[in-house]
């Protein structure tokens, strides 16, 4: 069986997902993704030429809030989940 997902695509997906997979993990991921693709291909067999595209799964719209401040300081609560913090900020690996 020819592979649906070639090595170059796997490389690209790893970069986008910021993952470094071992050879074994990579093959398992490839197999799982190929199953997903087969499933989508099945859907593609349907003739949708005369079907209006579905823009949203729910029919209604316009769920709004008014522009009023309802939240107070969330600092303590937000930072409670931070693995590392400093001076009231989240500490993360160097980015720039």
């Amino acid at each position, binding site marked *: 069986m020819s592979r649906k997902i070639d090595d170059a695509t796997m490389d690209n997906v790893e970069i986008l997902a910021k993952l470094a997979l071992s050879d074994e993990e990579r093959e398992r991921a490839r197999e799982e993704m190929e199953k997903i693709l087969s499933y989508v291909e099945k859907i593609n067999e349907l003739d949708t030429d005369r079907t209006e595209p579905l823009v949203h799964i*729910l029919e209604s719209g*316009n769920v709004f*809030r*008014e522009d*009023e401040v309802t*939240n107070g300081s969330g600092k303590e609560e937000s930072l409670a989940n931070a693995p590392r913090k400093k001076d009231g900020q989240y*500490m993360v690996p160097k980015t720039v």
Partner: protein
Amino acid sequence: MAKQYETVIGLEVHVELSTKTKIFCGCAATFGEEPNTHTCPVCTGMPGALPVLNKKVVEYAMKLGIAANCQINRYSRFDRKNYFYPDNPQNYQISQLYLPICHDGWLDIETASGNKKIRIHEMHMEEDAGKLIHDEWEDCSLVDYNRSGVPLIEIVSEPDMRTAEEVIAYLEKLKMICQYLGVSDCKLQEGSMRADVNLSVREVGSETMGTRTEMKNLNSFKAITHAIEGERARQIELLEEGRQVIQETRRWDDNKESSYSMRSKEDAKDYRYFPDPDLMPVVISEGWIEDIKKQQPEFAPEKAKRFQQEYGLPQYDASILTQSRRMADIFEETAGLCGQPKKVSNWMMGETMRILKEKGMDPEELSFTPSHLADLILALERKEINQQGAKQVFEQIMENDVEPISYMKEKGLMMVSDDGAISRAVEEVMAENPETVEDYRGGKEKVLGFLVGQVMKKMKGKADPGKVNALLREKL
């Protein structure tokens, strides 16, 4: 003969909206607060937190779209743009790709080479990211999510601009419209207006587009101009050497005045956009559009025309005053209070502009009370103060919004209107200068100027020279 090149520029402009709260949560959208105080589960991307759209953001987007002659999509939707970076806690930015709120508009710009129409491809609503700063001590980055979820409108132009001058004119126009609408203060330096420049070059006459690069981090009109000139030269040099321009994102370094490659530009497909199932579609009725249209303010061109007709201002004054809504409003209120529109215009275009320029301020930052300038103009009219003194008072009005009459009294800047005091000074000067008095009486009329000067000196400049002149002639 050397090849002639044409620069092709399109802009992606982000304006930060001046709403009270963020786009999808009730956190305040104000700046300069302690890091992470304006955060909640929604804007820090906690699993399970549900975003709810701020209605004002939709209205601001409609206002801006209508002002820029756009079509409004009756049905629009939010999509997720996926990327991993710590400024983005959800790992996706909520934006609009497939059904943006506005599309196909245009703005007229004016440059030295005439008028031009710049087409707008689309405008969409999205959320801002957090702020990252580098920590030297720990060699790590620190994240503040106060800005995460602050509403933005991105305005995407067509590649219709050819010069830096056109780009600046387009940005100025956009800024002016936003300020008139009150949707954003559009300060490049402070990041409430950000412009990414997409630029390519091609041989003059060519119909095909060259490969474009995108430049980011342009924080002033000067940086934009230099970046455009530098990038044009860089691309032409590559082509002349037979090499290729690579499609990439480049970051402008204001200190080095040059750009460097950040990363090769992602394709839209790399962002794996898909509809955000947490947010309901936005459905806009004809009635809603009509309501917004009715609320649109009078923009600069109509206002300038009205200022000429209603206040008899020269065209030049009217066009300068209406460049900023704040300036136009202050002019109009002050003119209404003192009934001297041309004098108000002179103060606005002269001293006001001079002081703004000196302080590097935007006319939108003007904050003095119009009645203070009106009172000063009336005091000048009544000759209670001279021009010199009035300028001094006006500086204080600009600086501290002082009440002019009490300030004049307090600082002893009031002119002496008491004839008795002027008479006494005249008599003293005549007694001190008997020879000059004799010269005058002997027919040397030009010594009068000297005597007037002496009286003014005695009055410390606080007398009307016309009155001094008349009194002197009388007594001589």
